């Protein structure tokens, strides 16, 4: 392979520019779904006939990036819907990854699964292949909500799916949920609390609770624009956020990122955390992003373009940007302030030459008084209220 053709995202010289000394993470995007959910703007196609070609191309993209000698300590297979791949294909995909790259023995290997796809066979195959974490896209345990979200499964299937994953031996389980659906606030909120209670009954190691967001170009955005539906106003959204966090913290979860909760630090999503602390990552598959500490590049958001480039032996990069210190600084702030860990003040000063405690003394004092942030052990940490306004905090 031609190592010069593709920048080595984990090259040591580059990695020093980032803030983290962790090994990089590997993301694989499986761009296929049986049907498109109206709120989702992740890239995927419902033309499943392209799967074999895609997997072949993905192998080529892996081989173009074999220069990652330092290896990865997290692998995340997302989508799309990776779980719609057959048992055999999943097995083979994971085998390919392990062959192409050095994966740490204690790596966190996550696969996103849809409740409808959790056959015992698939789960066993994943487990056997070395997958040790599942992220289940339950979204809700209410059939009405699931129908609105365009999901293919029913609530009872989600419940069964969770049982099956436990039966298959998965000990690190994440459940994804969505709140803030349209409708009378009282009813919608009651439904959400039920969903949250149902999820908690399974004691998942990890919970992601996302506020339904209107992404441009989605059918949901269309309906909102036409005035057919309206999402809760900001006051209600804030209440969802605060109540959810309070309930989950009460139940023993740690609110470690705006939308993410874990039973202790051990079960934080190690892979996703890399995004928030500027650790380099390599993303493979259409629309996947990679970051080497300085440069971020992303692949074509089209299976056809992706296949075409790789068929010609070229990297399927659509665009890339070299981040200035100023851009990295801003990212550092807004990403760091999404997490409870916050910003390592000494590290920030070393990297960007700015002592936030001095330069932002006055506003930080006010933010502390108003309980948006805490300063503890050399970290600037957002409180729960602070996380809710993390974007504004980043612009202080």
């Amino acid at each position, binding site marked *: 392979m031609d190592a010069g053709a593709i920048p080595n995202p984990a090259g040591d010289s580059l990695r020093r520019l980032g803030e983290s000394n962790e090994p990089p993470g590997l*993301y694989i995007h499986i761009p296929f779904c049986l049907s498109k959910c109206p709120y989702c703007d*992740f890239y995927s196609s419902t033309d499943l006939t392209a799967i074999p070609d895609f997997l072949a191309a993905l192998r080529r993209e892996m081989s173009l990036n074999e220069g990652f000698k330092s290896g990865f300590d997290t692998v995340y297979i997302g989508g799309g819907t990776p779980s719609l791949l057959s048992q055999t294909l999943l097995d083979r995909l994971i085998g390919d990854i392990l062959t192409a790259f050095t994966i740490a023995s204690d790596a966190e290997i996550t696969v996103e699964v849809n409740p409808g796809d959790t056959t015992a066979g698939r789960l066993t195959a994943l487990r056997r292949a070395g997958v040790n974490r599942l992220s289940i896209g339950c979204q809700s345990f209410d059939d009405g909500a699931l129908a609105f979200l365009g999901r293919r499964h029913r609530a009872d299937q989600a419940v069964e799916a969770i049982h099956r994953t436990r039966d298959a031996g998965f000990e690190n389980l994440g459940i994804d949920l969505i709140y803030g659906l349209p409708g009378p606030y009282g009813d919608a909120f009651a439904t959400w609390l039920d969903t949250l209670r149902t999820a908690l009954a399974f004691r998942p190691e990890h919970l992601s609770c*996302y*506020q*339904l*967001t209107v992404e441009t170009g989605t059918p949901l955005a269309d309906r909102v624009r036409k005035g057919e539906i309206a999402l809760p106003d*900001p*006051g209600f*959204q*804030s209440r969802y*956020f605060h109540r959810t966090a309070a309930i989950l913290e009460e139940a023993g979860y740690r609110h470690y990122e*705006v*939308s993410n909760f874990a039973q202790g630090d051990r079960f934080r999503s190690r892979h*996703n955390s890399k*995004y*928030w602390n500027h650790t380099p*990552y390599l*993303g493979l598959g259409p*629309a*996947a*992003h*990679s*970051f080497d500490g300085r440069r*971020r590049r*992303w692949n074509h958001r089209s299976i056809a373009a992706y296949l075409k480039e790789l068929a010609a032996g070229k990297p399927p990069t659509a665009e890339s*940007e070299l981040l200035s210190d100023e*851009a990295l600084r*801003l*990212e550092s702030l*807004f*990403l760091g302030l*999404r997490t409870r860990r916050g910003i390592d003040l000494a590290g920030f000063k070393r990297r960007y030459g700015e002592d936030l405690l001095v330069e932002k003394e*006055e*506003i930080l004092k*006010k*933010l502390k008084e*108003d309980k*948006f942030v805490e300063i503890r052990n050399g970290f600037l940490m957002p409180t729960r*209220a602070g*996380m*809710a*306004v*993390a*974007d*504004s*905090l*980043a*612009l202080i």
Partner: protein
Amino acid sequence: MDNIRNFSIIAHIDHGKSTLADRLIQFTGVVNDRDFQDQILDNMDIERERGITIKSQAISLPYKAKDGCSYALNLIDTPGHVDFTYEVSRSLASCEGVLLLIDAAQGVQAQTLANLYLAMEHDLAIIPVINKIDLPSADVERVIEQIDSELGLDSDTHLKCSAKEGTGIEEILEAIVARIPPPKGDQKAPLAALIFDAKYDAFRGTVIYCRIFDGQVKAGDIIRLMYNNATYRVEEVGRFILRREKRESLSAGEVGYIIAGVKTVSDVRTGDTITMDNRPCANPLPGFKEVKPVVFASIYPIASDDYEDLAVSLEKYKLNDASFVYEKDSSAALGQGFRCGFLGLLHLDIVQERLEREYDLSIILSVPSVRYRFTLRDGTVIYVDNPTHYPEPMSITKSEEPYIRATMMLPERYLGAVMKLCMEKRGVNSTLNYPNPGRAELTYEMPLAEVIFDFYDRFKSVTQGYGSFDYDLIDYRESPLALLDILVNGERVDALSQIVHRERARARGLQACERLKDEIPRQMFKIAIQGAIGGEIISRTTISAFRKDVIAKCYGGDISRKRKLLEKQKKGKKRMKMIGNVSIPQSAFLAVLKSDTE
């Protein structure tokens, strides 16, 4: 002299003045069609965008008429806003006639009338021209009727054209020759030239635009400006035909320019008379007024690092705007800046926009004020145009504010609404006349402060554009005044303070709070806005904090996109002034003066 015609085009805004000027220029062949840049006379971006002419210019059009003779048709452009009425009057004083341009679809409008009256005051020949006859909505018959009934002109004398399509242009040029009298004047008499405009040229200094009434001027002459008796040696005279064209001399009846080593335009006064130092004319030409700023506001850079840039930019700007004055100022809330004087709020807007656009500065303007007069306990009289310098209330024995006489012409049907508005604005001593049937001439004496801030816009709105308005400063009158302070989160923002009529203080305080509530975006903190007089809080409002602004998800693919959004927000925030922890947008400072009705 018989072959010279000096004229202006006067029109309501948007009735096509600049387009017609362009057509006349094109028709007379001063510029070929290929090089033609639309609307040559409005050569500043802002003018073009706002469709108003701010500064006038003059252009000399060579025209061979059907009578076989060649003429110099001097088109003197006029500014088109009430802030610049005096400049208009000086331009008109340099003419013998006007084209009164009326939009065939809109008919007679407020400025049509205001300009007509100005032209009549100067005894000018008036040629009504109906423009835009190509519009589907054109109603030429109605306009002809209006010329007769509303303007009191002989409707038989009208011309029709479409400046856009270039029809009727020759007829207009012929009418200028036939119906506007040639200038009179004595070439042998001592020089008397009226200054109607001045522009700054980076290489030559000030270029004075003038109309020669008597005598002659040429390079080498020592001229004297009669207002301040300053003398200058003439370097060059000439006419303006798209570019300056040098000539031997300018003589009685002609319009042209003089370059005489005058450093800045502030050294010359529009309306002043130029004469010869060694052979002066007996009296200056009539009508000179020293234009004084009536509205004052402070300008601060948003980033204090930009102070030096602002200083340099103001100096440059001032070179070309004699009516703009400024001096150093500082604010507890906004830091170092400049106190500036303007002819009116439009003038202020223009200055702000030009500083931002041409000099790339982000600036904040404090709340504008008029100039008040206070008599203090020790007998001294002081003038205060900056609320920051409001005297200690206990030391004031008498407080006075400037009054104007407003003269309004309007169709009778709007009389009730206008009188109500004038009364609301503390108008007194009204007079009412009917110069012609159906049209009322209404005068009121009103405090300047009331008129400046939102009177003009509201007047236009209640008369649906059919009223014309002009004012003269008359005197200072005793008035109970108070200093209204605005506190943002308990901190006094001096740039938001205003001097108000005591009886209106409460209402103004409330209004200011409400306006600020609309203008200041929600932030992380609750923002308390209070109006206070002395120590007493008279009004308050709060802007509640937003509680959630973060997006739910942010993974690999979202980061660049999200950062770009934040970069944009950050840029927007840079255009706001941080006061304490509150970001206040520029617009807030002017908005406090706006009333609810807008």
